[in-house]
């Protein structure tokens, strides 16, 4: 991979005029240093947040001696709140024309929350801190993805998101390892984990504040300047963008048949007793596959079109369901599930942001990305609740097969919905999947 930090001298960027009709192979890939630094911001921030997330249950139950049942409830509220804040933040980023400032507010809020851990004792203090952190995450995601989108070469949009997601996941994989290493050395060293977490959060905010430019989005502001100013104009107008509306429907439909990872891990755990002991490694395994495949699948999306890769990722998820519900299993069945699940994330997470930004007019970039991510988050929450009912009603394996069948139907529907969507430089190839 060719990474150059100085290839953008003079601040001139050849922002596309049209929709990027050149072949990906014609334009050499050059990673924008902005994306590299945003990736580093995400990486250290994920080290910060995942290190605490990994040990929080231990801290609350084992160390403070509190029951944690209520955390599940609070976490549910937070996920909903985070999804809604995300749209508001995306809209604010577009309206102000300064996505960096909004992103900085989000990263800053999460950093302030980490300071709270140094003083927190009771359940409520911790719940408030976790809520602050979640809301911060909700605020920062869409503006950051908008910054990535405007900094990327349009021919290499998905690949650029892939680079960011890879760095992001390196942090997510390293955070828990760092936290558990600290606890291995210092068994009651929770405060040390919090201090280390705060240090990484501060570095993340510092990199963002000092190094990442406040791209006023040449493209971002001008187009949104006139009509984008009206309050609430954002809420439905972007649905009228023919491409984005279809994408939101498609993503929502697929989200509704995407059951949570937790359920898949539970099926594996029930089938293979070894998974009980290695439960935490299932998450790490999926993360590692995600980070390894983020760039290759991004490149593929740029070459053959983002829609086919997005759909292909869900095909991997479908195979995961079938593999998990198969009566045979063993180590390789489990590993196969993790690889497919990681591939699913690598093929859909960054690619969705790339697709959304491609289908959104420049003035509504952050709102468009936020809408797509919110639709996915909310529909997946609904799916998890629904799948829970199904799980108990018909049993784990059957529920998996039912979910797989629904996913297969949704895939056909989505392929039809997204047919003809401009999904990449070579849109002529992208349609028929």
């Amino acid at each position, binding site marked *: 991979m060719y990474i150059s930090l100085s290839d953008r001298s003079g601040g001139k960027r050849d922002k596309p005029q049209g929709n990027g009709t050149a072949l990906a192979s014609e334009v050499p890939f050059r990673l924008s240093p902005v994306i590299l630094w945003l990736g580093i911001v995400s990486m250290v921030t994920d080290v910060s947040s995942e290190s605490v997330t990994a040990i929080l249950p231990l801290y609350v139950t*084992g160390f403070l001696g509190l029951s944690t049942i209520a955390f599940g409830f609070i976490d549910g509220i937070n996920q909903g709140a985070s999804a809604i804040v995300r749209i508001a933040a995306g809209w604010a980023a577009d309206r102000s024309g300064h996505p960096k400032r909004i992103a900085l507010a989000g990263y800053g809020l999460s950093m302030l929350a980490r300071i709270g851990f140094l003083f927190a*004792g009771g359940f409520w203090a911790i719940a408030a801190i976790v809520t602050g952190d979640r809301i911060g995450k909700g605020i920062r995601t869409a503006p950051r993805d908008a910054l990535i989108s405007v900094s990327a070469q349009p021919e290499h949009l998905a690949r650029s998101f892939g680079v960011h997601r890879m760095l992001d996941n390196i942090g997510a994989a390293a955070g828990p390892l760092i936290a558990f290493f600290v606890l291995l*050395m210092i068994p009651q060293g929770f405060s040390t984990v919090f201090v280390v977490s705060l240090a990484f959060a501060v570095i993340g905010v510092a990199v963002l504040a000092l190094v990442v430019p406040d791209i006023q989005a040449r493209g971002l502001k001008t187009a949104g300047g006139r009509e984008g100013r009206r309050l609430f104009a954002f809420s439905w107008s972007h649905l009228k963008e023919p491409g984005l509306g279809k994408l939101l429907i498609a993503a929502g439909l697929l989200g509704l048949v995407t059951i949570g990872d937790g359920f898949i891990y539970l099926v594996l755990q029930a089938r293979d007793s070894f998974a009980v002991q290695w439960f935490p490694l299932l998450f790490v395994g999926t993360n590692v596959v995600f980070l390894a495949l983020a760039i290759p699948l991004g490149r593929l999306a740029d070459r053959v079109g983002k829609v086919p890769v997005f759909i292909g990722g869900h095909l991997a998820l479908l195979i995961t369901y079938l593999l998990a519900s198969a009566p045979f299993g063993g180590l390789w069945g489990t590993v196969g599930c993790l690889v497919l699940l990681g591939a699913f994330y690598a093929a859909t997470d960054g690619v969705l942001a790339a697709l959304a930004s491609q289908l959104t007019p420049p003035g509504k970039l952050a709102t468009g990305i936020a809408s797509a991510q919110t639709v996915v988050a909310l529909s997946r929450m609904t799916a998890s609740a629904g799948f829970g009912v199904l799980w108990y009603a018909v049993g784990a394996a059957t529920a998996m097969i039912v979910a797989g069948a629904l996913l297969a139907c949704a895939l056909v529907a989505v392929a039809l919905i997204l047919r003809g969507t401009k999904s990449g430089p070579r849109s002529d190839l992208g349609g028929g999947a």
Partner: protein
Amino acid sequence: MSGTLAAGKTKWGILLAVTAIVLVAAGIYAVGAYQRFEESRTAASSVGVTAGQPLPGVPFVLFRNTASGQGYGNAATVPLSAPSGTRAVSDQECDRVYGTHETVVCLKTNRGLVTAFEAAVLNSDWQQQRTWPVPGIPSRTRISPDGSMIATTVFVSGHSYATAGFSTATEITLPGGTSGNLEDFALMVNGERLVTTDRNIWGVTFAPGQSDVFYATAASSGRIWLVRGSLSARTLTAMHDNVECPSISPDGTRIAFKKNDGGALAAHWKVAVLDLATGQETVLSEKRSVDDQIEWLDDHNLLYGLADEAVEGDSNIWKLGTEAASQPGLFIAHAWSPSVVR
């Protein structure tokens, strides 16, 4: 560095300085914490202890020692006749313990880059007999009076609807080594089988003299019941509302439990006692919130652990009479997870 990056030389300098300062500060803190840990680990215990003793032959209280210094976090015993006297500390680290004269069950955390949790059965010389992995953070454990069955409750993460949510997993391990997850038992409420997914079972207590019967807490859709379980029929039958972490008295007539009077989010657990024959419920006078599975000291007195608010990671065991007016008193300082072995 120029171009699209906003940083001039000054900014790079500031970034470098900030990064260096926070990393050095975190490093200094970590080294200091490590040194404090090493000191406390090798320091003499803050209470009178003896080491290397088997389980006492006389009635005793088994608990987790939380006195700072050597032996912090290890299973320990004191004679029932002298609970505040010298404690015999084992070399077994446990988060949660329960015992009989012959057997100790110890739920523990195996720290590592992949932190795992396990249940261990120890004999009266603290020698490990068998272990098995448990799927989450230790919460409660009980042994049936004859020592043949072991119940464990742990907090599982990644189990609930939200991936980061928390739920419990409760299993009973039978003599043959087979185990049953209580979530698979049929839950009967008002004569009807409850078919919902979001159910949690926790806090098993074994009825004395009845090998098939146990009691536990079941929750679903925000409702909480005391359930009477049958191992042979694989059923849980709801008996009474709002009973959490039941604990049956030695004579088998009453159940002590924690009763939430603070709502689902702002939980405040009162100590209460239920008479099984009459259904009469008595809420006791303890004002602090008790988040523990209560243990019976005898047929008229209860024991439970409370976290020490002044010292993180420390806790004390308190004693409370079952008369409505009785006041709590300190029973064993710097201790957690009491188990009375008569």
